[in-house]
């Protein structure tokens, strides 16, 4: 006697009911659909009303303006840009300026934040007090005020280009910024790059090999002399064989400003310093909390295994602390990126300044430009959180959590 296999119930329908309806069953699903329809209708009304009103008032609409000539200049461009380029290019120029200040700011904020956190945790009385004072002062002052302070105070202290401070005659500091020699590629440039690439790949391979040796066979291999040799020795040898990879173009005072060389504008310096020191104060507290959240028994266990204090910190305490640190750290990275829009106060040409500022008032198309700008900030923030989530997930996984 064989029994017919019972047909499984329609899984998908049940799933939908469970997710959307919860305990209320199909009624709940209906409510959700009605709600979604109302939301969609409100969105449609907003868009269509805006369009109609713009048309009634004869205000230009649409994204056609992006192809028009911008007609103004920008003083820091990572890609080539002149006044006769389009508004779309202005958008990219501003976006890159925002990204560069955010990335540099995040790196510095993280480094300063970790150092200050370690100071605060230090048994040394003076160091921990200095860390505490830093955190309490910096995080309790408005960031816009700090940006203006760094800009105006530092500018006022620096001399004009004709009396600029010179370091060895190759680097010049003045109120026009920091001027450094610019590298110009020579014949030895390509072999040099190739050697550098080989060195980096080799060093990474060595590290992978050393780690597998440690985990598989419990064998410690000291790799740093080989890594140094690969990273520095190899390029040096190619330089001796093929000649100098590049020469430097020295800046020279000509008229009002320096001609030649590369220049870092003071707006960038002020903004980066202000944003990174400000965010570092918050990161310091997050890192301190993270390290304190690891039970002190872990440290003791490390020493009883015969590991040094530094090794215990590096291998045992910090990885566990990272699990607590990463989510709030992501918040701080996002804050720093968004705070970079305060750049407009000191004339740094970021996205808000050149696109949502100048371009907006040249074209008058507020809705399109603000929407694009908001979309970009949203995208940057989501990408940052995605990267940090992946990192947090890896940290948790490596701890077996």
């Amino acid at each position: 006697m064989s029994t017919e296999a019972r047909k499984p119930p329609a899984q998908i329908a049940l799933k939908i009911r469970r997710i959307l309806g919860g305990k209320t069953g199909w009624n709940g699903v209906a409510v959700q659909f009605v709600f979604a329809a109302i939301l969609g209708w409100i969105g449609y009304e907003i868009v269509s009303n805006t369009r109609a009103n713009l048309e009634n008032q004869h205000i230009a609409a649409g994204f056609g303006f992006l192809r028009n000539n911008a007609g103004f200049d920008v003083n820091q461009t990572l890609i080539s840009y002149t006044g006769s380029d389009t508004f779309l290019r202005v958008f990219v120029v501003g976006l890159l300026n925002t990204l560069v200040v955010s990335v540099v700011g995040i790196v510095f904020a993280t480094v300063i934040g970790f150092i200050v956190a370690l100071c605060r945790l230090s048994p040394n009385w003076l160091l921990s007090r200095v860390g505490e004072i830093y955190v309490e002062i910096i995080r309790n002052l408005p960031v816009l005020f700090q940006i203006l302070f760094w800009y105006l105070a530092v500018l006022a202290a620096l001399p004009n280009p004709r009396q600029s401070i010179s370091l060895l005659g190759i680097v010049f500091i003045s109120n026009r910024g920091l001027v450094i020699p610019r590298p110009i590629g020579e014949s030895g440039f390509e072999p040099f790059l190739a050697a550098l690439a080989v060195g980096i790949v080799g060093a990474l391979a060595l590290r992978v090999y050393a780690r597998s040796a440690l985990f598989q066979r419990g064998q410690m291999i000291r790799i740093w002399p080989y890594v140094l040799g690969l990273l520095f020795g190899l390029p040096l040898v190619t330089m001796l064989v093929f000649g100098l990879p590049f020469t430097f173009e020295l800046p020279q005072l000509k008229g009002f400003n320096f001609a030649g060389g590369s220049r870092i504008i003071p707006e960038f310096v002020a903004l980066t310093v202000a944003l990174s020191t400000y965010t570092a104060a918050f990161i310091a507290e997050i890192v301190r909390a993270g390290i304190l959240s690891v039970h002190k028994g872990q440290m003791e266990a490390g020493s009883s295994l015969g590991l040094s204090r530094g090794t215990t910190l590096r291998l045992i305490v910090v990885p566990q602390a990272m699990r607590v640190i990463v989510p709030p750290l992501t918040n701080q990275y996002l804050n720093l990126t968004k705070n970079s829009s305060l750049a407009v106060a000191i004339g740094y040409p970021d996205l808000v300044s050149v696109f949502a500022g100048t371009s907006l008032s040249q074209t008058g198309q507020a809705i399109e430009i603000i929407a694009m700008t908001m979309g970009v900030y949203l995208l940057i923030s989501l990408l940052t959180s995605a990267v940090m989530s992946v990192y947090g997930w890896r940290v948790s996984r490596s701890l077996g959590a």
Partner: protein
Amino acid sequence: MKRVTLALSLALAAGLTAQAADAQTLKTVKDRGVLSCGVSQGLPGFSSPDDKGNWTGLDVDVCRAVAAAIFDDPTKVKFVPLSAKDRFTALQSGEVDVLSRNTTWTISRDTSLGANFTGITYYDGQGFMVKKSLKVNSALELNSASVCVQTGTTTEQNLADYFKANNMKYEVIAFGTNDETVKAYEAGRCDVFTTDQSGLYANRLKLANPNDHMVLPEIISKEPLGPMVRHGDDQWFDLVKWTLFAMVTAEELGVTSKNVDEKAKMENPELKRVLGTDGNFGEQLGLTKDWVVRIVKAVGNYGEVFDRNVGSGSPLAINRGLNNLWNKGGLQYAPPIR
């Protein structure tokens, strides 16, 4: 809870469905009892607040004249300080009824912003200011200079055009507000400060040592400054436009804030028409017959306004030049009131 949310979203949607742009600005202003006027964040001579918060200046007086014509009271104005880049949005969204903020009349602003210029209150042109210690006598000597400019202005584009046309290099540093721009110039971040020439003289007064700075002779652009109103309300457009013409006409006829009452009694037919003892032009604008008398009593004629704010009676001491009446070698010309 759910019901509240639903009701709220319905109300929101209904609000949005209502027409945003109301074509009855005059009625709205009368109902509100006060004129909302967009001005600068502080440009001496054009619109700046004193230490008691009273606004003065040429642009301010234009709004006061409109308020006087409507309410017979030049104090019924709410001044809204706007940065260069926010000004058009404030006008488009109805936050201000008139934008009187040293704004240059250009074709793109006239056609794509949903707003109209009502006339020209000041004929200006862009110039450069430098420190005397730089020993520069002409804008053509400014190759490789750093230039401070306020963002969101025609100035920024003129600057790019001028340096390109003369094959000179420069570095531009653009700031959000006028004060930030001046501060950076004073701190030495740039060699040159550029804006409309009237603005240069006005801002020079803000510097610690005005005499250490000079305005270069070159004028590199045409900057006709005037008030703006929203598209689509012709009555309001006419009202603001003719307020300005009334001030110019009053100067032409020699009517001043002091003698306006005597002039109104005179038997001159043109004076009778303008000052409202004859005809009903004021009523056709939606105002009263004595609208010009109200305006002139409140702020004076165009010449008085000019002298008091930017001309010989002010610290700026700017010559009338192009802003003189058409029959005295200038460009100020009003169509006849008849």
